């Protein structure tokens, strides 16, 4: 789950990374009483999780004379379609130089990947493509407590030595918060020292509970409902509802729909041990999407009982036609249950997908 900037900034601050002074506004009138804390010039930053926030008018420089008006305007805005509900007010930083620092997970080395560049403030993916030599990298096993000094020297090159301690603190944040990404872009040098002018922190969904996070805000209500049943659900834009067991098989089912020029309405992986009740919930959840005209159920497994699955499909009792591919134990029994109720059972996933695409055409 992605934390908001003000949440990440608070965590960075608690770990000793210098962050600008400031506070969070939940309405524009909260600014007036505390404006004195911010000085002659300050910055208002809309707390929306989109890239290119600054270019879309989500970040404005203000002064005590126009601050309240600008804050009120910002709260009325939509930034790339997302309404502004919170604004972070922070002191203005007199930026002399911008850097970039991040720590992420590297799948190839199975270690933390530290990235640093003195070309901060830019889109890092663009920099990686256009000027890869400017990006310094180091890999560190998570068994380490600190970044070794040689690695800091390699990362920083001729950049100020003080940044080394920021990198080490960022590594501590990364480790303690079960982060998938901890990023400062830009990390800035000002006449009064180094500051994290922005903060980004993404927490591993599998570690939310031990991080004390009870609600994954990244999920929509339907996705959360799906998660409650142990399903993985991703909404898509087509009209063929898809239910599979196993992520790979379900993805392959979507791909096959695309291959036959159909459009999937969703990805739903029911997970292991698909029994009557789980299948019923899955079928109902997919059928509740008004754009779904037909549902493909593609279940394959050694221990999946086809009679259970068949009963689940029937007890869901949805209006859309359901086309089923089942392979597992009690296959004949499952087929018998479905045939008697007018459901179509296919021999292979390819046949099932073809039938579904034909059904919507």
């Amino acid at each position, binding site marked *: 789950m992605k934390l908001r900037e003000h949440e990440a900034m608070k965590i960075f601050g608690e770990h000793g990374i210098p962050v600008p002074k400031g506070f969070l506004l939940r309405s524009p009138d909260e600014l007036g009483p505390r404006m004195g804390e911010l000085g002659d010039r300050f910055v208002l930053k809309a707390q929306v999780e989109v890239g290119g926030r600054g270019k879309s008018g989500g970040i404005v420089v203000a002064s005590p004379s126009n601050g309240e008006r600008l804050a009120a305007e910002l709260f009325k805005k939509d930034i790339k379609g997302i309404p502004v509900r919170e604004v972070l007010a922070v002191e203005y930083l007199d930026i002399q130089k911008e850097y970039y620092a991040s720590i992420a997970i590297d*799948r190839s080395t199975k270690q933390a990947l530290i990235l640093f560049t003195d070309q901060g403030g830019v889109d890092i993916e663009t920099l990686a493509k256009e000027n890869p030599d400017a990006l310094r990298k180091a890999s560190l096993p998570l068994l380490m407590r600190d970044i070794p000094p040689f690695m800091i020297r390699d990362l920083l090159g001729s950049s100020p030595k003080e940044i080394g301690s920021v990198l080490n603190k960022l590594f501590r944040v990364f480790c303690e918060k079960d982060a998938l990404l901890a990023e400062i872009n830009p990390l800035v040098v000002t006449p009064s020292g180094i500051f994290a002018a922005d903060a980004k922190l993404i927490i591993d969904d599998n570690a939310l509970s031990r991080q004390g996070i009870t609600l994954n805000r990244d999920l929509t209500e339907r996705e959360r409902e799906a998660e409650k049943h142990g399903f993985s659900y991703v909404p898509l834009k087509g009209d063929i509802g898809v239910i599979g067991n*196993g992520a*790979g098989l379900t*993805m392959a089912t*979507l*791909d096959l729909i695309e*291959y036959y020029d159909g459009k999937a309405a969703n990805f739903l992986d029911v997970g292991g041990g698909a029994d009557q009740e789980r299948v019923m919930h899955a079928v109902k959840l997919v059928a509740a999407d008004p754009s779904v005209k037909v549902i493909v159920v593609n279940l394959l*497994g*050694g221990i999946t009982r086809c009679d259970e699955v068949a009963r689940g499909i029937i007890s869901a009792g949805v209006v859309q036609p359901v086309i089923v591919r089942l392979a597992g134990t009690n296959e004949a029994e499952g087929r018998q249950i479905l045939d008697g109720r007018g459901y179509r059972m296919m021999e292979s996933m390819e046949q099932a997908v073809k039938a579904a695409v034909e059904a919507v055409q």
Partner: protein
Amino acid sequence: MIYGDRNTGVIVTGATGKQGAFHIALMNEYARKVGGKGVVAGVTPGKAGQEVAGVPVYNSIREALKEHDASASVLFVPGFAAGDSIMEAASAGLSLVVAITEHIPVHDTMKAISYARIHGCDVIGPNCPGLLSPGEIKMGIMPVHLSSRGHIGVISRSGTLTYEIVDQLTRAGLGQSTIVGIGGDPVIGQTFRDVLRRFEEDDQTKAVVILGEVGGSLEEEGARATDLPIAAYIAGISAPPEKRMGHAGAIIEGGEGDARSKIARLRQMGVPVASRPSEVPRLIREIL
């Protein structure tokens, strides 16, 4: 044979849970059929003295090893405990851990894999169905009835998609040497590259199927490093960016790891890539 054969003794950690007990029974049913050693002991802290599916349970792997000969463990413990179980197995001297468990915090996985490497222990998974060498050994949860013994290696990030492909290979008369589910998490122990290296040294394996999906670049890294004839299928051509497709690792991030560019890179290396799962047997025939 890679990773193990019928003489490999297996310890199951998380033996007394529903999943553990169920799969001990299935693994040992297979072991009896092929004349293998199978699961010799189970481990659940605090449950020593119990018996699960005819297998004695111990408090720790070290205790189990005092009474039994084993070199591998299969994990069915919950996500929060799995990193610890991997390290326990490595520390006790086992050379292989197969981590079936899903939802392990990725930092735990990374630490456990680093720790296991120090102890010379290989980790398969996490979030995987394990492995099956038809006629020799099953370590994990793969259904055995779809497989047949032969010369095709299979490496996959997925579970059920693997069974689908194995079924099609078997129907096409292409038996399998070993089927390895390497797992659907972003960080996994044995990668395509590691398993391909094992297959290179395995006389039984003549060609390998790589079943990949969106996220990362492990498929390409594996393909680049091997001389074995390989064919691939990559799931997720219809996956939208920045969305996790069921597996924690199946996500296109920052424009990286999408199916189309993966397929393009594999084809550039001369690896035939199937557009549909049903094309895999034909592609394998062509490279044999």
